[in-house]
């Protein structure tokens, strides 16, 4: 057995196979290489607040806050390169508490509210990101750093294209009648930068079949939520949440920081669902009221509602710059009205 030949053959053919796989995803499916939005990446952003930028402008919230804010426009308008800590599928309020508990933070915290998510027990989908921030081991840190160059070069290196994930979602698997609801995985819908800004993938807007998959996924998730707890329990939990918000905002203000709330746009079926499940007066108004903070709801401002949300929940990458610029202006005005002084906002 001539091992050198075997090894070279193995490497060459493996490379050909991987190259073909990469070409397929790039060319036939239009994927681009982008960051994976890993826990390590969140921890990296979070550490900016901890170590180098305690007076930063920090964004928290769900994926809407991540997708809808254009960090470059924000920097043009305010001079600050903000820290993007929003986490998809996650409740912003525990993260508000997490930031409030960080004694170093005395900057401007922008909290994006996605009303239904406020009822999640705990953080939600990305709870592990916060735990990872506290417990990250040196080997995990190293692994993440080593992963970055691959993430930026390999289009196939993302959640959608894992071999078994691809196999599971093929339509040719026969259904077993009587099988209870199986949640389809959420597809990759964004391209992410190193600073965690996410841009809605244009394919969601331009490819009707893919768009249907994404909106179908949101509908599936929302229609199959577990039953809510009994009203008394839910009410008590919500009241506890409001108290927590008040406490956290007060803590941040006591250190010289400030908190503002934003309600990014949603549309169509999703918006209707939110109206039923988490009406404005109940959720948004209560949260902003209890915090005694500036709250900017997209429905109150034409400039903030006049954008496309191709899959009902995130602003198109083509409209986000305009939206962000409008948001900065509106926040500035509202903060001036209230006499809140933040040098980076120019008030």
């Amino acid at each position, binding site marked *: 057995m001539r091992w050198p030949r075997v*090894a070279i053959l193995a490497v060459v053919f493996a490379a050909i196979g991987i190259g073909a796989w990469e070409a397929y995803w790039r060319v036939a499916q239009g994927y681009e290489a982008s960051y994976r939005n890993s826990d390590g990446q969140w921890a990296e952003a979070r550490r900016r607040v901890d170590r180098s930028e305690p007076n930063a402008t920090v964004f928290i919230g769900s994926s809407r806050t991540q997708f809808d804010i254009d960090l470059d426009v924000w920097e043009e308008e305010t001079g600050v390169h903000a820290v993007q800590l929003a986490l998809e599928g996650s409740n912003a309020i525990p993260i508000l508490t997490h930031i409030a508990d960080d004694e170093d933070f005395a900057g401007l915290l922008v909290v994006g509210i996605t009303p239904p998510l406020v009822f999640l027990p705990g953080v939600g989908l990305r709870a592990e990101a916060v735990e990872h921030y506290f417990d990250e081991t040196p080997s995990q840190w190293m692994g993440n750093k080593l992963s970055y160059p691959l993430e930026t070069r390999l289009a196939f290196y993302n959640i959608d294209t894992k071999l078994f994930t691809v196999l599971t979602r093929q339509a040719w698997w026969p259904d077993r009648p009587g*099988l209870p609801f199986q949640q389809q995985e959420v597809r990759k819908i964004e391209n992410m930068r190193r600073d965690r800004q996410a841009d809605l993938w244009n394919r969601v807007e331009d490819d009707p079949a893919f768009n249907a998959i994404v909106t179908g996924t949101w509908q599936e998730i929302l229609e199959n939520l577990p039953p809510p707890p009994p009203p008394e329990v839910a009410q008590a939990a919500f009241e506890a949440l409001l108290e927590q918000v008040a406490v956290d905002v007060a803590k941040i203000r006591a250190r010289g920081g400030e908190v503002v709330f934003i309600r990014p746009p949603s549309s169509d079926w999703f918006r209707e669902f939110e109206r039923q499940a988490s009406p404005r007066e109940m959720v948004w108004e209560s949260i902003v009221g209890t915090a005694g903070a500036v709250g900017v709801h997209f429905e109150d401002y034409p400039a903030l509602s006049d954008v496309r949300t191709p899959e009902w929940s995130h602003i198109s990458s083509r409209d986000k710059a305009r939206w962000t610029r409008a948001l900065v202006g509106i926040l500035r005005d509202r903060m001036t009205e209230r006499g809140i002084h933040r040098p980076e906002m120019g008030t």
Partner: protein
Amino acid sequence: LVNLTWVFFRAQSFGQAWTMTRTMLGFGVEGSVLVLSTYLVTTVIVVTVGMLAVHWFMRSRRLEEVVAKSPWWLTGLVWAGMIFLIVITQGSGDAFIYFQF
């Protein structure tokens, strides 16, 4: 056989063990619900059959002999296939290279 006995080891009661055994053998019990998709059933069957087939084939051979007798290019291609599959499966965790110590 071992799998069947594990059920009895693990179950909280004889009734539960019996229910489990019956469903394992394909006899549904009152109020039973399907939990495995066709995909999962298929993968389990394929892997189990494949594993048994390989074990049967290898029952009186050693791996080193099999490899030594195979043409070099076949070994190379099999390795290439394995590397390729490892890479495109991507594995779990956020880092591609996963150290654990």
